[in-house]
């Protein structure tokens, strides 16, 4: 399955980075999949890292909205570094996208 690029915005201010991310995913729940006569599939895990260190981690369910949006904050001098965001879905598709922290 071709996956689509996640939209990432990350900005550091006074040692706190705020990340806003929209992953592109159908997030078809079991009920929705049944109605659409498709197979259920949704993101089950998301992780974000800076310099290989985990700064965000969540295990997710079918009840995140379609094209799920997440926002989180973490500490550290991170301006100019790359934020690496990865999601994995129920079928095992995986996608990683990167964005420089402003």
């Amino acid at each position, binding site marked *: 399955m071709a996956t689509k690029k996640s*939209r990432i915005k990350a900005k550091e201010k006074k040692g706190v980075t705020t990340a*806003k*991310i*929209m992953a592109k995913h159908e997030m078809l729940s079991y009920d929705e999949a049944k109605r659409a006569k498709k197979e259920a599939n949704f993101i089950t895990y998301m992780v974000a890292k800076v310099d290989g260190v985990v700064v965000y981690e969540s295990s997710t369910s079918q009840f995140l909205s*379609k*094209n799920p*949006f997440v*926002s989180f904050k973490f500490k550290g001098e991170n301006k100019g570094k790359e934020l690496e965001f990865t999601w994995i879905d129920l079928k095992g598709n995986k996608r990683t996208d990167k964005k420089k922290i402003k």
Partner: protein
Amino acid sequence: MLLKIVKTTALFTLTTCSLNAGEFNAQAEKDRLALIDYMEAKFEDPLKNRYTFFPYSTDDELENNIEKGLTHEDFGIGNYSFSKQGKFSYDQIKEMPPYEEIVESGEELYNENKALQKCFPDVTIAGDYPYFDEERKEVISLTSAINDCIVASGEKKWNEKKGKMPILQSYFASATTEAEKKVDIKITSAEAAAAYERGKEYYYTQRGYLKLSCATCHVQGTGQRVRNESLSPLLGHTTHFPVFRLKWGKDDVYKGIATLERRMAGCVKDQGQNPPKASSKEMKELLYFMAYMSNGMNVDGPDIRK
């Protein structure tokens, strides 16, 4: 008698000659200022002035859901201007709105189309439409201008409500917003003023089997409730189109965005009337009036709604 006619004619000629471009909008300007006064008075203190402005609203609604002390520019975001209930969702979704990729697609559409680039060398124009074309003697909406351009380039005209039209308009709106431009509608002739007046009459005339006028809900009704809907104000109505509606974009993001004309048709239908076509004279003149009411306000599109 003859003298009287001569006098009248002379006066008329004098009036006509002395009217410069700035004065054809005198009535419209008066209407606009009166509307701002009305809205500001209405939302100055809804609870205190309930008998004047909110005769049907409950205590709970007035005490807990309606903001007070609103001024002109506050009215640019529909019912979120004053309704606390929806504001949290609105703000949250605006943090990363679903239309961002649509704006990019609109830019792509523009960059791929030489004709569009020629017709619209400046894309920060969302606040300048509709305008009155003094040669064609008719109102040109952004939608009709785009279609004129598309047709002149030999392409088939675009759907006026959804698809490429609002996608391209999203780009125009976004560029205009980023350029921090304001709504700037001009009335520079007697014909233009007449078109404005017809649009105004349409807006304030009761229509459809429910016998509602646009104003019933969006002037006098602003801030009141219809079932679970908090009614939005005429003031600022056209500043933020095209609009992404969550219910339209539920399955496909690109279907979420639609033109002002589509929204208008939906609203007129809700009045119980068969709506005028998107490119009809009625619709364009109606939009001309509405846009004039938002003159001077910030262009702030695209936007999101429920």
